[in-house]
């Protein structure tokens, strides 16, 4: 995501009718729009939905700059989806309305059997474009009109666990601090002559950024935990009025704040991959899996307690939704399945990450579960996108491989960070 897009997806303090609505209503609105996007199929219904969602956006006073951003984003989406579906639509029956490359054209025509624009593909492309526009517009409306912390408060009122909500609140609170800190570390590295001129340079840079960033975050987490506890947060198991003393998800305040730092890191770690390596066609699954699994496994390596995967994965998903896309429970099973599979893996082993082999297996498991669930459940039933079995097989393999590599890297980093942190005298 580009810097301008970050800016566009940010809460803006205003007093419009949409800003004044309670966050609960906006959560209900997000859920309703998300479900309608999935169940509506005809272009006319989706067009009406999109028009309604756009109207709500205008009531939220998005401002000229944001409208311009939305217009360009929407145009790009519509053109890309519409064009690709019109040309590559593969379902039958299909009616060719225009020939781009005839089947007797040398090489390309003979190889592909001709390239045509199909009427059914154009309609399908239009439907998919409208879905994406509606989802994007809803997300912008909710995000610009609701302060993330108020969204979290609403989730608490809706009976989300207190400690889980605290983690999300802290992630929101500390996101700008973490950004600033990582910028300063990158600057310090550049002042010391480290240059990013190749993929190797970028990977080296990540290594050098990670350790000071995490060690500093752990130090800050400790102070923030002190400050929260001395203002009666009562989340710490050691605190006499701590409300949770044992069982699953038994974290103290320091651990909860540390988890929130890792949620931010998961959120931030995928950005360079979204902009660079993650855009490499076909291989993006591999490159996308590496950083996110790496950060997840550093967290598991540093806080090896039951519930850590659940807190990090589900926390990250919810954080992304609050910050960027609006609350959409249709994606929650995705996070729940990912976290339960890993929690179960560690439960059966009876140990957390204690070797590269364990990190490799857990990573491969994560990648397999996540991508199989995506291609077999999420894509067809939520996004109405269908993939060939061979494609699913290759992408799942690449996802599992990327997660295994990320898992091992995360384990390695966790060892290094533990060592460095122990030396830092805290």
């Amino acid at each position, binding site marked *: 995501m580009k810097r301008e897009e970050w800016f566009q997806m940010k809460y803006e303090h205003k007093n419009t009718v949409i800003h004044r609505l309670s966050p609960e209503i906006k959560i209900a609105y997000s859920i309703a729009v998300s479900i309608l996007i999935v169940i509506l199929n005809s272009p006319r219904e989706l067009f009406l939905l999109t028009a309604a969602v756009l109207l709500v956006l205008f009531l939220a006073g998005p401002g000229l700059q944001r409208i311009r951003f939305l217009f360009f984003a929407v145009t790009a989406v519509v053109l890309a989806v519409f064009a690709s579906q019109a040309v590559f639509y593969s379902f039958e029956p299909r009616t060719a309305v225009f020939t781009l490359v005839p089947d007797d054209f040398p090489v390309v025509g003979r190889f592909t059997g001709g390239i045509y624009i199909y009427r059914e593909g154009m309609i399908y492309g239009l439907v998919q474009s409208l879905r994406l526009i509606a989802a994007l517009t809803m997300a912008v409306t909710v995000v610009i009109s609701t302060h993330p912390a108020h969204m979290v408060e609403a989730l608490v009122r809706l009976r989300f666990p207190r400690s889980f909500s605290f983690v999300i609140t802290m992630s929101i609170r500390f996101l700008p601090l973490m950004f600033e800190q990582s910028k300063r570390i990158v600057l310090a590295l550049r002042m010391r*002559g480290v240059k990013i001129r190749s993929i190797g340079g970028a990977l080296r840079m990540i290594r050098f950024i990670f350790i000071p960033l995490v060690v500093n975050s752990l130090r800050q987490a400790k102070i923030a935990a002190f400050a929260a506890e001395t203002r009666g947060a009562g989340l710490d198991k050691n605190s006499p009025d701590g409300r949770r003393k044992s069982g699953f998800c038994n974290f103290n305040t320091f651990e909860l704040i540390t988890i929130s730092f890792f949620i931010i890191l998961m959120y931030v770690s995928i950005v360079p991959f979204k902009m660079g390596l993650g855009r490499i066609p076909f291989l993006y699954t591999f490159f996308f899996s590496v950083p996110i699994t790496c950060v997840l496994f550093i967290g598991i390596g540093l806080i090896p307690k039951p519930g850590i995967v659940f807190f990090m994965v589900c926390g990250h998903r919810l954080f992304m939704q609050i910050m960027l896309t609006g609350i959409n429970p249709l994606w929650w099973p995705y996070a729940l399945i990912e976290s339960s599979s890993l929690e179960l893996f560690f439960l059966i082993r009876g140990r957390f990450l204690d070797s590269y082999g364990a990190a490799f297996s857990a990573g491969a498991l994560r990648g397999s579960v996540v991508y199989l669930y995506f291609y077999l459940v999420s894509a067809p039933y939520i996004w109405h996108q269908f993939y060939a079995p061979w494609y699913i097989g290759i992408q799942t393999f690449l996802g599992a491989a990327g997660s295994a590599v990320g898992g091992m890297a995360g384990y390695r980093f966790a060892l290094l960070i533990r060592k460095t942190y122990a030396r830092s005298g805290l």
Partner: protein
Amino acid sequence: MIKVRRLTYTYPYTESPVLKNIDLDINDGEFVLIEGRSGAGKSTLLYCLNGIIPHLYGGNLTGEIDVNGLNPAALAGSRVASTAGIVFQNPDLQIFMPTVREDVAFGCKNSGLPESTVSVRVHEALTRTGLVHLADKAADELSNGQKQRLAIAGVYALAPDVFLFDESTTDLDEKGKKEFLIILERLKSEGATVIISEHEPGYLEHLIDKKISLKDGVIFSGEQESLPAEMPRHPPVISSGTAVRIKNASFGYSRRQKIFTGLNLDFRKGEFTAVVGDNGSGKTTLFKLILGILRPGKGEIELEGAVRYTLDDICGKAGFLFQNPDEQLFAATVEDEIAFGPRQLGMQCDTEAYLEAYGMRQYRGVHPYQLSCGERQRVAFISILAMCPEIIILDEPTTGLDRASWVRLMDTAAALNSQGKTVIFSSHNMNIVEMYARRVIRLETGRVVSDEIRA
């Protein structure tokens, strides 16, 4: 009344105690300063007084602590908060809610106070800290000084018997410190018990009723080290050449947020210059412009003869040290840390000579994180010097360092200056500016309001 008897405390996983047999009496309404070098045990003592130790730190605590008849070690979190509230150094880590009002209410709500009491307490706390007009403002949008006042308001709302301040002015500029001082004066006049630990307590002299000096974990009655009398220590070597020339430069982070408009400034080779001003006055932006990290929208900046350069172009010619050493250390040993930069630039580096020259030989194989904060900052500094820069820029490098540490660091800078290197630094600590700077440039919202050469 606070009574401490035979207090000894050892952190987890360490062998030697940080506090040893501390005996202490503090009367109600007293204003107490805790002084001592980094690592003397100042913060640890404060943490013991409000129950952070042992509740959150663990470790081994023996002896007795009595705060107004209560033992913090045996109190519940919310009771501790209303007995001894603490304000830390970094205000950003003490703010939890989106708006000023909500953040002040955070502790009261956690303590289970009824809504009507919460709103009265919040209003009272905001009034006392001068934040009423900012009550509905986003906490993120406050200045550092305002954020620290917000942290105090959050504690104030819990109506504690004792206020503890753990180096709370470290991140504040002059204006922030003045605002902070007004609150302390008010607390004193209201008869509150205040215990404050500070590296630079000069501005508090008129408030202090009692001083507790800590050295290596024990209370001692000797004098703390005073500021070195001789200043500056090294004669400057100023040549006629220009190190940095800023010609009519304009810069803003956005069209609306202009920082500099038509800025003209020259730094001669061999000058030792301090750039001072409140947070947001443009000091760091000026340094980033000089270093090519940012580019001026209009005008030109020339560094050692180079124009239209980037950071990569001048890396090695100019060195930049900033506040937090932990964001600038990357290697596993001090020796590797010093060699890190030269290695990236393909330069030869005699690490042995640097270790020897700066008295770091005994730390050669030690992980930089194992050193004290002052030593870590020195390692970061030496690592930059190992790249042989002609211009050295230090952006508030002494923040959070005790007196002995900043004197060592700035002495190193002064020694380099005497060899002809150009040194430009910023600091909120006017003692340092007075002692070392030959030229002082004061910035106010991007404008140079004064530029003095000192005799």
